């Protein structure tokens, strides 16, 4: 009983530490990556006793600055909501990560342990539900600020997020139809099958259109460029106008955590989760763990090597997707608001519906 509890706490701690560290490191990655794109060096001035760690200390300096900055609540603003809004913006993100499987099921002390905090049958709905919770953060921030500009900014933000929430949901229906399950663990499991014996059935291969819809919709949900109309820090007045100090920081830390989580969802649904093509564990290939190539070659590996390789693969896929989101953020110009809405409702929405129809017909036809 204590072992079960320990395992659960351990998994939660592992995921939380990874997201929080990931979000912290992403603040550094963002500065360094944008610097490299524009042929600069990037953050490298902060140092502790001369140790700079390639500019990582700058993130620490940022955090210190934010913590000691004046924490301003507008007079006649709603104090409680003003305090709660960043929490609402940040907390749902962490809940979402609970159902992402970050490794294969393993056997520990005679138990089967799934490397996934929550094994939930309605997993995808859970992701979408908590994804939409973040809207409350922006809306409450705008409302509690007692500022018409912040309120309008919050309205704009929530309108955008709800528009893209729909695309997010519709684009996930394709993979759900194909894999026939809402549970992320089983979705990942289904992706280790092979079309014609050699093409891995990853979501991006089975549902390329859904991926192309999901990626921009997910980026719009993180409220980052090119969809950064909700905040547009220095140019547009957004929902976070009346926020300062660490509460402002929480909005943006939540954003970075959201990047990690969305990369996790994308890995799970579209990039085969923790799977490496042609790598099987013992239960899948009658006790012969290792690489089974389609031309018959077999490269044996230990059971635990497979587990570690798969967890590393998950990490690598996560990092590549986070890199991709950053690269998109630093490449594309911001949309105008009417363009933003047009892309969502008049371009992505019909494509998403068409994708669902075609996928449904194909699934029906192939199932016969």
């Amino acid at each position: 009983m204590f072992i079960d509890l320990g395992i659960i706490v351990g998994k939660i701690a592992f995921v939380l530490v990874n997201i929080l560290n990931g979000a912290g490191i992403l603040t550094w990655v963002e500065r360094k990556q944008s610097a490299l794109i524009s042929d600069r060096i990037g953050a490298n001035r902060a140092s502790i006793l001369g140790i700079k760690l390639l500019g990582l200390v700058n993130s620490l300096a940022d955090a210190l600055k934010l913590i000691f900055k004046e924490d301003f609540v507008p007079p006649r603003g709603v104090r409680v909501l003003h305090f709660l809004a960043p929490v609402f913006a940040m907390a749902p993100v962490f809940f979402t990560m609970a159902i992402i499987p970050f490794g294969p099921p393993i056997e520990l002390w005679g138990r089967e342990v799934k490397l996934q905090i929550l094994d939930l049958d309605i997993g995808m709905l859970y992701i979408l539900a908590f994804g939409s919770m973040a809207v409350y953060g922006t809306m409450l921030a705008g409302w509690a600020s007692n500022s018409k500009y912040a309120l309008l900014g919050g309205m704009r933000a929530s309108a955008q997020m709800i528009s893209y929430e729909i695309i997010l949901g519709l684009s996930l229906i394709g993979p759900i139809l194909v894999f026939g399950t809402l549970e992320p663990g089983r979705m990942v499991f289904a992706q280790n099958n092979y079309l014609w014996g050699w093409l891995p059935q990853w979501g991006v291969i089975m549902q390329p259109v859904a991926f192309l819809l999901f990626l921009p919709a997910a980026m719009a949900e993180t409220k980052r460029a090119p969809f950064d109309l909700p905040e547009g820090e220095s140019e547009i007045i957004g929902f976070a106008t009346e926020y300062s100090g660490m509460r402002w920081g929480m909005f943006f830390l939540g954003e970075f955590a959201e990047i990690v989580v969305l990369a996790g969802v994308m890995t799970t649904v579209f990039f085969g989760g923790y799977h490496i093509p042609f790598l099987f564990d013992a239960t899948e290939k009658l006790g012969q763990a290792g690489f089974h190539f389609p031309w018959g070659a077999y490269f044996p590996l230990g059971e635990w090597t497979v587990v570690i390789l798969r967890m590393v693969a998950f990490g690598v896929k996560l990092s590549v997707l986070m890199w991709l989101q950053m690269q998109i953020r630093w490449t594309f110009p911001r949309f105008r608001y009417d363009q933003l809405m047009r892309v969502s409702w008049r371009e992505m929405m019909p494509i998403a519906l068409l994708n669902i129809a075609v996928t449904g017909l194909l699934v029906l036809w192939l199932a016969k």
Partner: protein
Amino acid sequence: MTYYPELLRGMWVTSRHFFQNFNRFVGRALGMKVKRPLVTFQYPEERRPIAPRWRGRHRLMLRPDGAPRCVACMMCETACPDKCIYITAGEALDGRVEKYPVAFEIDLLRCCFCGLCVEACPEDAIRMDSGYIDLGGYSRAEFYMDRDFMLKDSALTTHAQYRGELDGVVVTRVDLLAQAKQH
């Protein structure tokens, strides 16, 4: 519809920059000799080389005996399009020139660095070649330069080479010719 291919092209450009610079970084970390990859100057320690044509903050030139060359003729003040030069003339007592600037002030916050004062000066008393690029300050007063401040950047040796043997006689054409030869 033409928008989407361009997005991919943009991604290609930025990714190329990213990976080129990233590889250089990695190469340097591994001790490989790579040419300076990036355009950043570590500013306070490392300065950007200044082109010979650079025109920086104004300075006032001295005669070999250390007196300001300026004869307070007001030509620069007249030529200044921003009206940011303020000269107060006084009678010179050394007998070589009639007037000298009691006060010579430039308000850098109004100055547009057009160089018309330098062009207008018949005595070559004001120059803008002093190489200063860090025109920063914490208050408005710091941008208000007075005569002595502008004089202190002009060592005697810098212009003695132009007109040493002329010994204080103001012959601007010679100066200009010498300057032309210098560059």
